């Protein structure tokens, strides 16, 4: 069986040109990352800002080419630096960004936002575009009356639903989610996570879930990859990574995550009273 997504030793360097005062240098954002994701599964990529997780997300989404290494989507090798990007490939991978306030065009109506991927990538007639946009609105928990509204008329959670709907318009196989819930409130976060789980079941979607919130990762992921300075320091199934973290950085990360259970509150209060 082929994997939906396979990365072999991906490398990405950014070159910073020099000038009179500074020598040219290159930043190694990714230093050889390999992983596979199967259909209907979720791979979570965890790490702090600057560790290369968003760079990796951009490579998987075919926005940026990798400097070296191989990227296979649906078993087919993709190299956008050499061959460019076909509409067919673009249909397979879609991305949802962190900030739903920034990722929707404020001058476009919701209906136009949803229809745009169809206009660019397919030859769907206008009537059908409208129908499919309406159907997708309902699928993500919005209503038909929202079709003619503008993004500023929606709350953060609703906007993230619109972003999800837009990503699904082309029936992608693979969805890259770049911190999709970190800008949302707790109760809205729960709704969006549930929606993502429902959609994954219905469309057999494969998720690459980029996050720094370990409690969300533990809830949603099948496999977890921990990144640190462009390297994958830990990669395994969720249970293996959470029950037996091997790398020091993973341990630091777990220790730094605030705990909200009664036992750790009791321990903290006891420590405080003793001091």
């Amino acid at each position, binding site marked *: 069986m082929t994997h939906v997504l396979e990365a072999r030793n991906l490398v990405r360097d950014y070159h910073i040109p020099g000038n009179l005062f500074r020598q040219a240098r290159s930043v190694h954002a990714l230093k050889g990352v390999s992983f596979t994701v199967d259909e209907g599964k979720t791979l979570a990529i965890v790490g702090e800002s600057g560790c290369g997780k968003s760079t990796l997300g951009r490579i998987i989404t075919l926005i940026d080419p990798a400097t070296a290494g191989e990227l296979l989507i649906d078993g087919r090798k993709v190299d956008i630096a050499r061959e460019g990007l076909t509409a067919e490939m673009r249909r397979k991978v879609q991305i949802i960004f962190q900030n739903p306030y920034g990722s929707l065009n404020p001058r476009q109506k919701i209906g136009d936002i949803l229809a745009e991927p169809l206009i660019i990538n397919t030859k769907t007639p206008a009537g059908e575009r409208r129908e499919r946009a309406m159907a997708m609105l309902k699928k993500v928990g919005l209503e038909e009356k929202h079709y003619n509204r503008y993004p500023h008329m929606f709350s953060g959670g609703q906007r993230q639903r619109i972003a999800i709907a837009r990503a699904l318009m082309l029936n992608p196989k693979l969805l890259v989610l770049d911190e999709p819930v970190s800008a949302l409130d707790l109760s809205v976060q729960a709704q969006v996570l549930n929606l993502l789980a429902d959609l994954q079941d219905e469309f057999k979607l494969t998720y690459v879930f980029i996050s720094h919130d370990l409690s969300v990762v533990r809830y949603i992921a099948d496999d977890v990859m921990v990144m640190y300075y462009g390297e994958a320091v830990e990669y395994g199934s969720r249970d293996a990574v959470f029950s037996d973290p091997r790398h020091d950085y993973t341990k630091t990360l777990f220790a730094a995550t605030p705990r909200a259970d009664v036992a750790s509150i*009791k321990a903290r209060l006891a420590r405080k009273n003793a001091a």
Partner: protein
Amino acid sequence: MALLEIENLVVEFQTASGPFRAVDGVSLKVHESEVLAIVGESGSGKSVSMLAAMGLLPWTARVTADKLAFKGRDLLKMPASDRRKIIGKDIAMIFQEPIASLNPCFTVGFQIEEVLRIHMGLDRAARRKRAIELFESVGIPDPAERLGHFPHQMSGGQCQRVMIAIALACNPKLLIADEPTTALDVTIQKQILDLLMKLQQEYRMGLIMITHNMGVVAETADRVIVQYKGRKIEEADVLSLFESPKSNYTRALLSALPENATGDRLPTISELFNEQQMLDGAAR
């Protein structure tokens, strides 16, 4: 005597569609060397009520309260010039976006010395000495050199440390931290929280921690106030809040935490209770 005492605080904003009530009858007390957490989602009025106490709201806001007193002196009734002597000196505040709350046009050294000049009246040499001391106490390496840096030359975590140093410059009795770690990574969040807790115990400050993160509440607070739609829903000490939440809303909030998930879907708040049920039993 309580450090900060608020009774029946109401904040209304004048909008095109009539007045909007952001805070609706909130009362609270903070004592010396106590950590009070205010939890709520966006729009619950948690930041607005603290900005009202600081006097930082725009002119469109109408603030009324039966009592808004710092150490027994009513802040709403005193002249503005007296109030300014307390704000920034005895009550200090740190904000969510460390990089946005520093002035990009001035060095961090200038910005911390400005506070020392205005509130403490120190001379140039004493200001610099105190600034270096403060930077050291918040754990900024190489403080003397860092004073000459601009905010954009520092990382988010370092900028938040500078903000904390500025807030602590005049030895405040009360520190209000408005989502101090939301914009930061988990590992940096841990460092900043540890630092705040250490300084709070060292200076025996009252600390109000505004947050939406239940984990941060569990790690820092002595007492917790839960707000929803501008109202106080529940007030309890931290252990009993997590062990036996009294109100519907708090229960719903805790069950929506991914780490408390049972089964493969999270219970969402709107499924569990409607809005009225959530407001029921609001502690007035």
